[in-house]
């Protein structure tokens, strides 16, 4: 148990550092790399929680594909690597209001609601359970998501086309 908690602490600290990095760094490429830290951290957390399949999908889809997309986006829009002007707008102070308030409210609510509830893990979730869930119980949402992906694909092509 202690080992798990130590692992959680280390990963969570890395994720928090990465998250702050994403929103504070002045270099766009660094921000993408900080995002990798956060996403890899969350994949590690999933493994801690026994969700191995989700963890690997996270690694493949996010770090493999989405981050690459982001890097393409950065290059195609010629985002400044060494900006002459700040990357943040003048809402920095005001933005603390909703984000801080949300953090406080969510934290308070969660402590209020779940207190010291423990997670009892028996064994990692087997893949067969997930496939059963997707292809039996949630088959229709799965199909709908497929259609949505197709629509997004076509939409992205139409939007980005040069004419």
């Amino acid at each position, binding site marked *: *148990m202690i080992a*798990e*908690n130590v692992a*959680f602490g280390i990963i*969570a600290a890395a994720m*928090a550092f990465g*998250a*702050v990095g*994403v*929103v504070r760094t002045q270099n766009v490429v660094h921000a993408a790399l900080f*995002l990798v830290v*956060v*996403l890899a951290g*969350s994949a590690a*957390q*999933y493994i801690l*929680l*026994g*969700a191995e399949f*989700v963890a690997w999908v996270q690694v493949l*889809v*996010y770090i493999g*594909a*989405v981050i690459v*997309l*982001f890097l393409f*986006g*950065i290059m195609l*829009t*010629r*985002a400044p690597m060494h900006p002459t002007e*700040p*990357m*943040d*707008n003048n*809402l920095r102070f005001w*933005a603390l209001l*909703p984000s801080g308030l*949300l*953090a406080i409210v*969510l*934290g308070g609510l*969660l402590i209020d609601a779940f207190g*010291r*509830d*423990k*997670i009892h893990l028996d064994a990692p*979730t087997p893949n067969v359970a997930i496939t059963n869930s*997707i292809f039996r119980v*949630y088959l229709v*949402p*799965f199909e709908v998501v497929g259609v949505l*992906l197709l629509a*997004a*694909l076509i*939409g*992205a092509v139409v*939007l*980005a086309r*040069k004419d």
Partner: protein
Amino acid sequence: MLLNQFLLLGAFLFATGVYGVVTRRNSVLVLMSVELMLAAVNVNLVAFSASLHSVAGQTFALFVLTIAAAEVGVGLAMILLIYRNLHSSDLDDVDVLKG
């Protein structure tokens, strides 16, 4: 492990994402902040899945992953379009809503 340690981590990620969405000028960075918020949601889903011994949470985390991928695709296409029209990916330049 406590359930709350994951949930509080999620809450922190979400709040950070909100901060990023509001303050970042570069539109790609705004999209990354949105990804932070989605990651926070996924952490919560998987944590609840483990806590409740129900695989539904993980299924939905996978759905969120899919939606996030679609969102990034469309979002980046829109950013490219904006960039092509305004020659800038700076959201401060996107102020046509101003009266």
